């Protein structure tokens, strides 16, 4: 498939595609939104992954299922649900001062919904693999629970955190369905790389679509190589790496 794509396009097509202002905007927005999505995902996934790995509490199984919903739901449904959520009164009021729907924040939010679920699953497995005795020993040595987490658990989870970040970034880069519904496909506004592929295809510019697809494939290969370099801790918890 990749080889067929490579033979279909030429370096000239790729160069021409990279020279297009629309595609350069899409590359910039993709890099920015994926990076912000990754940071947000880690910020949420680290405490939730730790909570799910270490503590028993009522409703844990329900929360566990809830966290997996973005992974199993059809991407378009996630986009539709976000759109409906932002039609509720409080969020419509928010949008009067901070526009989200059909604007750049909606791209980040749509990417975050799925990327975060992957990050949570990866980090939950990572934290579950860390011997809880290490934390307990740290506590007998004088740490409180927060200090034990910062000094012992977080450094031990570093490879898993890097893996979760890479997976979240790569997942966000490939996100399309929720973005199409929640952000629209407006050139130079909410256009990310998958949107570009869709728009170029829809106007019959197959060469440009293939060139952008190859860019995304290259990014995916780099991301997966990084995951393997960092040891792939926590990958066991990720049952699939589906495309949106």
């Amino acid at each position, binding site marked *: 498939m990749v080889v067929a794509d490579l033979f279909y396009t030429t370096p000239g097509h790729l160069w021409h595609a990279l020279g297009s202002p629309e595609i350069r905007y899409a590359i910039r927005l993709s890099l920015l939104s994926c990076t912000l999505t990754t940071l947000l995902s880690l910020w949420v996934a680290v405490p939730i992954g730790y909570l799910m790995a270490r503590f028993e509490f009522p409703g844990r199984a329900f929360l566990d299922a809830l966290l997996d919903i973005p992974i199993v739901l059809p991407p378009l449904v996630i986009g539709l649900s976000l759109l409906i959520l932002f039609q509720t009164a409080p969020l419509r009021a928010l949008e009067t001062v901070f526009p989200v729907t059909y604007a750049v924040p909606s791209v980040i939010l749509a990417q975050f919904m799925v990327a975060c679920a992957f990050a949570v699953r990866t980090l939950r497995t990572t934290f579950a693999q860390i*011997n809880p*005795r*290490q934390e*307990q*020993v*740290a*506590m*007998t*040595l*004088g*740490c*409180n629970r927060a*200090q034990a987490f910062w*000094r*012992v658990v977080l*450094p*031990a989870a*570093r490879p898993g955190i890097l893996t979760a970040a890479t997976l979240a970034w790569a997942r966000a880069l490939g996100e399309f369905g929720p973005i199409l519904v929640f952000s629209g496909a407006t050139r130079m506004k909410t256009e990310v790389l998958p949107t570009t592929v869709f728009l170029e295809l829809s106007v019959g510019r197959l060469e440009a679509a293939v060139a952008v697809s190859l860019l995304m494939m290259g990014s995916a290969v780099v991301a997966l190589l990084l995951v393997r370099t960092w040891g792939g801790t926590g990958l066991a918890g990720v049952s699939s790496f589906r495309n949106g």
Partner: protein
Amino acid sequence: MISLRHITIQAGSFHLRDLSMEIPTGSHTALMGRTGSGKTTLLEGICGLRSVRSGSIWVGDREVTNLLPGQRGIGLVPQDGALFDHLTVRQHLEFALEVRGWATERRETRSQELAEWLGLTSLLDRLPAGMSGGERQRVALGRALAFHPPVLCLDEPLSALDDQTRGEIVAVLTEIRNRTGITILHITHNRSEAERLADRILHLRDGRLES
């Protein structure tokens, strides 16, 4: 001295009920019992890692029942050492001292002293990966002893070691007791190990203690 007064600890569906015992200062007490008899649960209760539902725990003349683990003055050495993979041996020896706010110079003096005593000088800048079982246990012992705790709890510290290394750690434990006069509570399955090291052996059976 460690004193347990009518303590009840719950671990899932398992209960230790109305348990009392006294471990004299400076003694080495071995606690034996079948798998699932509650030895580790009891140790966790004493160290503050598991909450006690009723009763009280005293270390010397201080009640520690509701204190955080780090405030109890108890060093813990688990079965597998539970070393921190990202820290060097030196950082392990200084871990408790750094958390407790000791000055750098004082920390370095103490870690050097422990390293010489436990034969860890050549390993000070090594990470735990690749260390032998005996080396790992010596690091775990040094880490637990660094802040001069009056009590040392050992959770089957020799069970994962080969015969030669076990002999080596037995010698280290004997020296620790002779040098520091620390009170040791030692959980073990191994009767000969208990007889060799301990001056008192207790059995935990069906949640009750027997001498």
